C-alpha cells in the first residue's frame, strides 16, 4: 500500500525509527511554530494540547518535522486493550513523509481510487487508513 501513495517501504521504516512520538494532550508546543500562524488561527488552538482538547476524535497529529503527537488513550487496542496501536504509529509516520497537501482525505481518496475498500465519507474517517495498514502489514 505504501507504493500506492508513492512511498518506499524501507523509507517508511527508517522515518518511523527517526520520529519522536510524544503525548499530544500535554504538549505545549506552539502550533504557529510547527505549521504556521494561519493554521493556528484556522483551528483555534495555540498549543498542541489545546488542539487535542478541542478535537475529541483526534488520535494523532503529525506535522512534518520529526515529532508526531498522539493521544495516549488511543494507543492501545486488541483484546482487553493490551495490544499496541502500532498502525496509528505507522499512519502518523506517513504524514511525516508526505507533503502538507497529502492529508488523510487525499490518502483515502487515492487508496479508494486504486481499489482499496475505503470510503472517505465513512464515519470511521481516517481510521480506515490505519485499518488498511493493519490489514496489509500484518
Amino acid at each position, binding site marked *: 500500500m505504501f507504493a500506492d501513495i*508513492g512511498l518506499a517501504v524501507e*523509507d517508511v521504516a527508517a*522515518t518511523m525509527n527517526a520520529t519522536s512520538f510524544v503525548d499530544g494532550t500535554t504538549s505545549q508546543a506552539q502550533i504557529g511554530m510547527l*505549521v*504556521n500562524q*494561519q493554521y493556528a488561527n*484556522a483551528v483555534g488552538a495555540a498549543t498542541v494540547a489545546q488542539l487535542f482538547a478541542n478535537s475529541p476524535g483526534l488520535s494523532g497529529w503529525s506535522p512534518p518535522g*520529526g515529532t508526531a503527537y498522539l493521544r495516549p488513550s488511543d494507543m492501545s487496542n486488541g483484546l482487553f486493550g493490551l495490544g499496541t496501536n502500532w498502525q496509528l504509529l505507522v499512519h502518523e509516520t506517513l504524514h511525516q513523509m508526505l507533503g*502538507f*497537501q497529502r492529508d488523510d482525505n487525499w490518502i483515502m481518496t487515492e487508496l479508494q481510487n486504486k481499489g482499496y475498500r475505503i470510503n472517505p465519507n465513512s464515519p470511521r474517517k481516517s481510521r480506515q487508513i490505519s485499518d488498511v495498514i493493519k490489514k496489509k502489514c500484518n
Partner: protein
Amino acid sequence: MQLTIVTIIVAIASQSGLKVPTISGPIPYRLLSSQVLRPDQGRSYVVSVEKPLDPPAIKTLLCQIVAAEKPPNTRLEIGVYLGLDEFIPPLGFKPLSDKLAAHRMASYQWNTKLPNDRRRLSVAKDTDGKPLAKWEYHEFDHTKCGS
C-alpha cells in the same frame, strides 16, 4: 537546502499575506507552497492555475515547474489546484481539507525508488473544471521532460 528565488518569494509572500505572483510561461501558474520532504530531501509543490487543463496541458505545466524549481532526483510531489487563493496545510482540519479537495485538479507523485509506477499522475477534474467521479491515472515521468 537549495532555495530558488521563486521559493524565497513564495515564503515571504505567504508569511506577509501578499498575493503570490503569477509565473508566466505556456501555462501561467502561482506557486503557493514549496516544502522539503523527509527522509530523502524530496520536494512537494502546491501550484494554482486559473483555468481547467487537460492531461497534456497538465504535463506541460509539470515540466514548467520542474524546469523552474529543479527539484532533486529523490522524490517529488506536485499538486495542481484550480483557482486556489492560498494554501493552508489541512493537517486533519476538515474545513481546510475540504477546501483543498474542492480545488484539486491533478496530483503527481514520483519516487526514484518506485521506477515501475504507472499511475504517477492523477487527474481529479474534467476540462470543464468539474470533479471526476473517479480519478483518472496517466503515465508520466518528469525526468523525461524536454526529451
